[in-house]
């Protein structure tokens, strides 16, 4: 038990700075955005501006009902920024604790100890998931407090699922990073694949509906699994959570197995 805890404690400590910076950054982003809501709400002319934007673009960028509290939050935070930043955080944190540490040789002293490679890899995955959870809790807490302060009047049972789905999207991206790290141990590749999935996934969900040919393919994007149901407005179906958790678990399992089977990289 002591060894298992140590295998999580070391990467937890190593990722502390990055996790804290990500958490504080998102808190500031959400706080500042919501701080503008009262002046936005009281301003006139927003509807006129929105009327000039084509409907497909409004749908693509989550700007529907922009002058409503849910529309304001979606358009400014939860359609793109928060899920994208959580996805990027997931990729970067996982890359740092797995492929980067392996490639730099910093993982080697631990791999030479009487513990399995699998336990070392899973310890690092657990540490990253913990930090994503902490960041998610900070986002949720900030959101709930800010809502109270500016009277956004969005039900907690809409906010909570939205944040959970964004965090799970980050977990899925972290899991993809874990897969590539376990497979190759090459930090550049982990970063490239992770970022491509984050940006590409958003593009597929947001822009494919603009084309009749591409529209059916929108649902291949994890972004669509998480956010296409508009969780700030509608009740979230249970399958959306499972669609993110299931593949993430499989990707992490596959990455761990691949890491066990190959040579360890060294500088």
């Amino acid at each position, binding site marked *: 038990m002591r060894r298992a805890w140590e295998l999580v404690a070391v990467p937890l400590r190593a990722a502390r700075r990055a996790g804290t910076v990500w958490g504080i950054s998102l808190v500031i982003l959400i706080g500042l955005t919501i701080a503008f809501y009262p002046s936005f709400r009281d301003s006139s002319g927003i509807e006129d501006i929105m009327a000039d934007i084509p409907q497909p673009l409004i749908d693509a960028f989550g700007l529907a009902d922009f002058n409503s509290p849910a529309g304001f939050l979606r358009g400014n935070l939860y359609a793109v920024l928060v899920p994208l930043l959580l996805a990027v955080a997931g990729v970067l944190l996982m890359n740092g604790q797995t492929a980067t540490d392996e490639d730099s040789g910093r993982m*080697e*002293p*631990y791999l030479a100890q009487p513990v399995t490679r699998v336990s070392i890899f899973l310890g690092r995955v657990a540490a990253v998931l913990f930090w994503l959870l902490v960041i998610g809790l900070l986002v949720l807490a900030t959101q709930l407090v800010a809502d109270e302060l500016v009277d956004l009047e969005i039900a907690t049972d809409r906010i909570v699922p939205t944040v959970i789905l964004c965090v799970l999207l980050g977990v899925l991206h972290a899991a993809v990073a874990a897969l590539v790290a376990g497979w190759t141990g090459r930090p550049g590749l982990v970063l490239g694949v992770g970022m491509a999935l984050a940006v590409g996934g958003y593009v597929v969900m947001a822009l494919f509906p603009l084309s009749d040919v591409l529209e059916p393919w929108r649902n291949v994007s994890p972004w669509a699994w998480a956010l296409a149901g508009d969780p700030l407005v509608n009740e979230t179906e249970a399958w959306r959570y499972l669609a993110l958790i299931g593949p993430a678990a499989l990707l992490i399992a596959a990455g761990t197995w691949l890491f066990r089977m190959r*040579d*360890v990289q*060294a500088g």
Partner: protein
Amino acid sequence: MGRKRGRAQVACEPAAGWSTLETVNTATVEPLRIAGLVKDYGRVHAVRGIDLEVRAGEVFGFVGPNGAGKSTTIRCVLDLLHPTAGEVRVFGRDPQLEGASIREQVAYIPGELRLPERLTGRQFLTSIGRLRRRFDRSRLEELAARFKLDLDRNIRNLSSGNRRKVSVLSAFLSDADLLILDEPTSGLDPLMQHEFLQLVRERKAAGATVFLSSHILSEVQSVADRLAVLRAGRIVAQGTVNEVRGLARQRVEVWFETDAPAGLVQVPGLGEPQVDGRRFTAVLTGPARPLIDALAGMPIDSILIEEPDLEEAFLGLYEASDDDELPDDARGEARS
């Protein structure tokens, strides 16, 4: 003068008996046996068939130039790399199948100094210690004092010598039965090198086995019982330090009472003979006995045979010949 004479295996151990090594008794099973080990990185042949056996309680030197395959071999032993062919047994067990339990008996100092930068020495060493069955904090303090290491300084702020001390301490925290040390004193000052060698002797006296990869020949000479010399992924010499030292080129100078005889050039192992009046000089490789026998009964005024130098022996052994040169693209990739 060809140097191929140095490539003869002095005492290459047979690779037989593998299937019988199934017990875990460290007192009776060889700590390390390697048979036919091959490791390729794509087209690059880093290790080309290594056979060696490290006996319980000995210090075994593992020497060779950069790119010879020393670290690759060690990384195969620790299950960091999977061999392309051949077998590795640590205390009779396969590292690929029982790596974690084997490493309970093994301590390792990696050749490359890469430590978690943001931790202090104490944090790093404590985390390493906690991953082992036996972790004694007082041992950590004792070793730190002995090596004059400030455990509470951040690793990123340590000099390379002090980082090396952290690495050394990580291997000596536990009472491992087999110490695998890859260039362990690189970066240590002479005083600390001496302290390190003392530590190695203490562990040996306590019954531990040491597998010491090193470039510092005086270090190997002073602590190793036996050694293997590696070049281009192959062992080119293996034996006791004295046996390998016997491969060295020794300068011979003989002064005769009369003109030097020409017949000495036929003596086995004697090369580069030169006769200058009463003075005869040559280079001797191998045992001096044939030369002494040939000189017996001759009118000798004085004779000088230089002390065999291990470094000379290594230089001869290191020198590559055409048939075992690494391909050009292998030089950068094959790890030493």
